[in-house]
């Protein structure tokens, strides 16, 4: 009934941005790739190629296994953290997101440091080496990276169920199983399912883990596209495989969006009362066990990376000596670029990408409050680049925008655009969820007192969602700071960022220096975590 057509305008910049720098280039790339590959027949030939087939089966296997293990570990922890209140709960929830803020390379490095040959556990528990390389290592890295996401989404699901429903089941004589089935279980499963699908997508698209932990035989489709374009120099084949990849992942991506939409719809109702942990109830122990295991894994991972970063670079050198070398001329000589320049680039790209993502999130927050019906489509649009995958996104950007921008600034601009595009789907929900908690009557009151809708939004609503903005900003910053896949695809040997430098150092067998870079990236993630925790804030998907 409301006639608030002005709400469309603030949505246009983000729509135009994502369309111009992700959807249209990717669509053109896929279309030209399909025709260059020889149409449907050519695509069929690409699909029949044994190496491509291996990449697709690797993606499905790694995605499926990772999703299964991540749910087995993350969902019980999510149930525990969603249902019960205890001291340190919000800190734990924030801590669990830290690996997600890390570049995948740092996680991979942590897995190697803990489980790999000569790793921390190698001598204590020799059997665990299987988790340090090959398929086991890839799944371990994927699980460490994604299980916390499953936990968070499951916790959101649990928190979304109306407490009165569970209490009603109890007053009608229903036990815990009935309460699970009829009250809170459905929304918990919804959250866990959303987490599982997201883990599957991220793992099937994994790039760094197969590259570093296994090699060509474990390449996912993402790595295969990179290899076809950058190593074998067959961009037409790469575009064709990219088309097949998008076609394959369209369904799980749509499923994820549908699950999250249902989760959001449920989330409107809930405000859960504090509930103490029933330590004597044996049903709670598996959930406690999963939470402890996950927390230990996250702390262990961070500790391992920081420990490796602190180790002497050569026997006899002091602790943290790697950092001195890292910023010294030797590294510049070997890589052709200084760490300081890489650090400057990383900070610059992350800052500008974050500012862009926040600006879009602020405009979109207003637009969606005026036109809530557009939320579903907009979420699908901004999520699309993640499914298109970072490699395909950067491939498309390079193909279609490099000639337009030209000049020496091309690399920087393209990296910036890619990072902003990949940060938007994470910044937007944090602001949107925070805004949904502000009663609508506040803005309407301001309007009845003479404020325009936009001024009322800026003056009344935005100050109230400062925490959401801080969380969105930190999340976007940390993700951009650690972004590797798209940046690696676009960077040149002399124009690079810290995650790319980490990869190169690992490639040229400089583990101590690579660990030092990983340590820097971990510190940025930890600082983000600490700021998020300080305000009792929480990351939202």
């Amino acid at each position, binding site marked *: *009934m*409301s*006639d608030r057509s002005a709400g469309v305008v603030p949505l246009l910049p983000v729509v135009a941005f994502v369309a111009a720098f992700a959807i249209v280039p990717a669509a053109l790339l896929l279309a030209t790739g399909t025709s260059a590959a020889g149409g449907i027949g050519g695509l069929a030939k690409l699909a029949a190629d044994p190496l491509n087939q291996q990449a697709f089966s690797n993606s499905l296997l790694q995605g499926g296994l990772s999703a299964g293990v991540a749910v087995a570990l993350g969902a019980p922890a999510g149930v525990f953290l969603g249902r019960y209140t205890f001291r340190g709960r919000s800190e734990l929830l924030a801590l669990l997101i830290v690996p997600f803020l890390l570049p995948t390379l740092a996680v991979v490095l942590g897995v190697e440091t803990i489980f790999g040959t000569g790793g921390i556990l190698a001598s204590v528990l020799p059997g665990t080496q299987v988790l340090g390389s090959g398929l086991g290592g890839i799944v371990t890295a994927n699980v460490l990276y994604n299980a916390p996401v499953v936990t968070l989404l499951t916790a959101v699901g649990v928190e979304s169920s109306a407490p009165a429903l569970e209490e009603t089941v109890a007053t009608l004589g229903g036990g815990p199983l009935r309460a699970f089935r009829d009250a809170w279980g459905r929304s918990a499963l919804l959250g866990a399912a959303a987490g599982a699908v997201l883990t599957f997508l991220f793992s099937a698209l994994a790039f760094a883990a197969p590259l570093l932990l296994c090699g060509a035989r474990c390449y996912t489709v993402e790595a295969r596209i990179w290899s076809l374009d950058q190593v074998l120099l067959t961009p037409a084949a790469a575009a064709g495989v990219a088309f097949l990849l998008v076609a394959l992942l369209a369904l799980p991506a749509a499923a994820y969006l549908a699950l999250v939409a249902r989760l959001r719809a449920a989330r409107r109702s809930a405000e859960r009362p504090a509930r103490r942990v029933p330590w004597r109830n044996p049903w709670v122990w598996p959930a406690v066990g999963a939470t402890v295991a996950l927390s230990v894994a996250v702390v262990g991972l961070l500790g391992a990376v920081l420990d490796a970063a602190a180790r002497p670079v050569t026997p006899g050198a002091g602790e943290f000596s790697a950092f001195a070398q890292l910023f010294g001329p030797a590294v510049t000589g070997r890589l052709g670029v200084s760490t300081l320049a890489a650090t400057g680039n990383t900070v610059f790209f992350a800052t500008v990408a974050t500012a862009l993502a926040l600006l879009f999130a602020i405009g979109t927050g207003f637009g969606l409050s005026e036109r809530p019906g557009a939320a579903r489509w907009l979420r699908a649009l901004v999520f699309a680049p993640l499914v298109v995958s970072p490699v395909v996104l950067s491939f498309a950007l390079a193909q279609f925008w490099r000639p337009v921008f030209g000049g020496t600034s091309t690399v920087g601009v393209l990296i910036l655009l890619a990072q902003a595009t990949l940060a938007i789907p994470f910044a937007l929900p944090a602001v949107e969820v925070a805004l949904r908690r502000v*009663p609508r*009557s*506040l803005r*309407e*009151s*301001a*309007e*009845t*007192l*003479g*404020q*325009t*809708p936009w*001024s*009322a939004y800026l003056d*009344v609503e935005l*100050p*109230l969602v400062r925490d959401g903005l801080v969380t969105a900003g930190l999340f976007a910053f940390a993700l951009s700071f650690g972004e590797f896949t798209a940046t690696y695809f676009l960077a040149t040997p002399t124009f690079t960022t810290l995650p790319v430098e980490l990869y190169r150092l690992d490639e040229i067998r400089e583990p101590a220096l690579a660990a030092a870079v990983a340590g820097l990236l971990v510190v940025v993630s930890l600082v983000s975590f600490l700021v998020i925790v300080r305000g009792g804030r929480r990351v939202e998907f």
Partner: protein
Amino acid sequence: MSSSECLRVRGLGASWGADPVLTDVDLDVADGEFVVLMGPNGSGKTTLLRCLVGLEAPTHGTVSLRGRNLRGVPTHRRGVGMLFQEPALFPHRSVWENVAYGLAVLRRPRADIDRRVEEMLRLLHLESLADRAPQALSGGERQRVALARTLAPEPPLVLLDEPFASVDAEIRRDLRSAFRRALSATRTAAIHVTHDREEGLLLADRVVLLSGGRVVQHGSPPEVYGAPASADSARFLGYNVLVESGRAMAIAPIDVEIRPLGESNRTGTVTLSGFAGGSHLVEVELEGGERLEGRLPLGAIPPAVGTRVGLRWRRSVALPGAPV
């Protein structure tokens, strides 16, 4: 437009999709008049207010404020104040800043703002709370601040959407007199939506009854209560509605007498009987299945549940229109 006319609504309609919510609503409010809008749930009261303030767009009809047609005028340019069920105070601003908000938006000079805010705080007895944060106030105090904030920019018309609904009975009593006094003192016209018919009849200069999205009756409280225009109006006003000799009759509970079986108009079985504060409440199911509520004075002995009783009424009002 008459010289004292504040609001004029003609043929206003609104709908949610294909479902009409308001149909051909006509309404006039004079300057300084306190109009109470009453009606059952879903009758369109809140939608009407939201259309008047511009938060919803009507499908047809006109709204004019002091002769100015409001068609297409956005909420922030209408100059119509509104108070919501929840006080909607800005939590990041103090009481003083909340009250000053509308004046600052209008870019009034600082001295004017200070003077007007002081005046509003005094009028609603909020002087000592000026520096407090909204979170540190009680429910009643918050509503008083919300009214002060609404009245500060001197709107000609204020819309009150059940502002006492979320406070307890004692605070509600205090608030309604504080609100009525403040609105009278500032000579501001108001449309007050309430479910509480006693409160509505007590406060109103004029009552407007809304049912099914239409205005079914309006007039002074004694006029409306004394002659309900339809069965719906009568039920909403607390009457029993019975059909006698093919005519619908409205009977007030206080006019119902419990009599021996032989001396009565109708007979029935008592289904509920008990002390209800200032009177005894007796509910009787008549032989035709209709239910009738009676109020007996405290000195009377109420019949027990299950007793067959005779009923007589001192007075009834014939309702116009077809039997219901």
